[in-house]
C-alpha cells in the first residue's frame, strides 16, 4: 500500500490514550499524516476529562494497559456512557482479540503493536464507517 492509497480522514478528531510519551508522539504524528486531528492524553482519567470538555471528539484510540487504575477497556466503557456511539479502537502489545470483553462486540478492533500505518488507516476508516455500535 503506498501513501497515496492509504485511506485518509477528513479532519475528524481522534482521542489517543497512550502512556508512553514516545509512542504518543508517534501516534499523534501518524494521525496527522492520515488527515485526522489527534488529541493525545496519557491515562484514563485525563481521557474522560477530555471527552467531557471536547464535544468534537469522534473516535477513541486507546492503549489497553494504562496507569492510574483504568485499563483501556474501562476508559472505553466510561467513554461510551458519555457518547454511546463513539467508535473505539484498542491498541496493545498483545494481539489476543479474545482479551477484548464481549460487551465491545466482535467488530471492535484490537490493533497489535507494532502496527503498520496502513493497518491503522484501515482500522480508523472502518471504525468511522460502521460507527460505535458493533
Amino acid at each position, binding site marked *: 500500500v503506498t501513501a497515496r492509497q492509504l485511506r485518509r480522514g477528513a479532519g475528524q478528531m481522534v482521542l489517543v490514550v497512550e502512556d*508512553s510519551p514516545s509512542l504518543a508522539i508517534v501516534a499523534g504524528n501518524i494521525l496527522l499524516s492520515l488527515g485526522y486531528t489527534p488529541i493525545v492524553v496519557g491515562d484514563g482519567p485525563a481521557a474522560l476529562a477530555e471527552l467531557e470538555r471536547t464535544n468534537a471528539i469522534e473516535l477513541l484510540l486507546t492503549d489497553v494497559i494504562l*496507569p492510574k487504575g*483504568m485499563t483501556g477497556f474501562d476508559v472505553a466503557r466510561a467513554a461510551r456512557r458519555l457518547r454511546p456511539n463513539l467508535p473505539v479502537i484498542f491498541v496493545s502489545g*498483545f494481539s489476543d482479540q*479474545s*482479551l477484548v470483553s464481549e460487551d465491545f462486540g466482535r467488530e471492535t478492533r484490537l490493533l497489535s503493536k507494532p502496527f503498520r500505518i496502513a493497518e491503522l488507516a484501515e482500522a480508523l476508516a472502518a471504525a468511522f464507517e460502521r460507527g460505535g455500535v458493533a
Partner: protein
Amino acid sequence: MTQAPQRVLVVDDNKDFAAVLVTAIERQGLTVRVAANGLKAIALCRDFAPDTIVLDIVMPEMDGVEFIGWLAQEVYHARLIIVSAHSRYTDLAEKMADIKGLTIAAVLPKPVRLPILMAAIKG
C-alpha cells in the same frame, strides 16, 4: 552438593519498590535481578534464567500482560507472581495467562506485605 540459590527476577518500573524487594530477597539468601519493563525482562530471562518472576503489570515499553504472552511461549517456565495495585490489571493478566495456558503462582495487591510476598516467592 550445595543447591544453587533460587533466582528471582523482579519486573517493575517503580525503582523504590524494586529496591525494597531486592533487599528483602537478598536477605533470604536468594539471587535477584531487576528489570524496569517487559522488554528488559525478556533479555534478563534469557541470561539469568529466573526460577521465579515477580511481575508488575503497568510498565512502559512492554507491559506485564504482553510479557505473560511472551513467557508462555518460552521453553522453560518460571513461577509467576503478579503484584499490581489494581484488580483491573490483574484480571487482564490472569485472563492472558489462562488463554496461554500459563499458571500463576500468586496474585498479590499493592501495597504488598513483604512477609506475604516472600512466602509466595519461596513457594
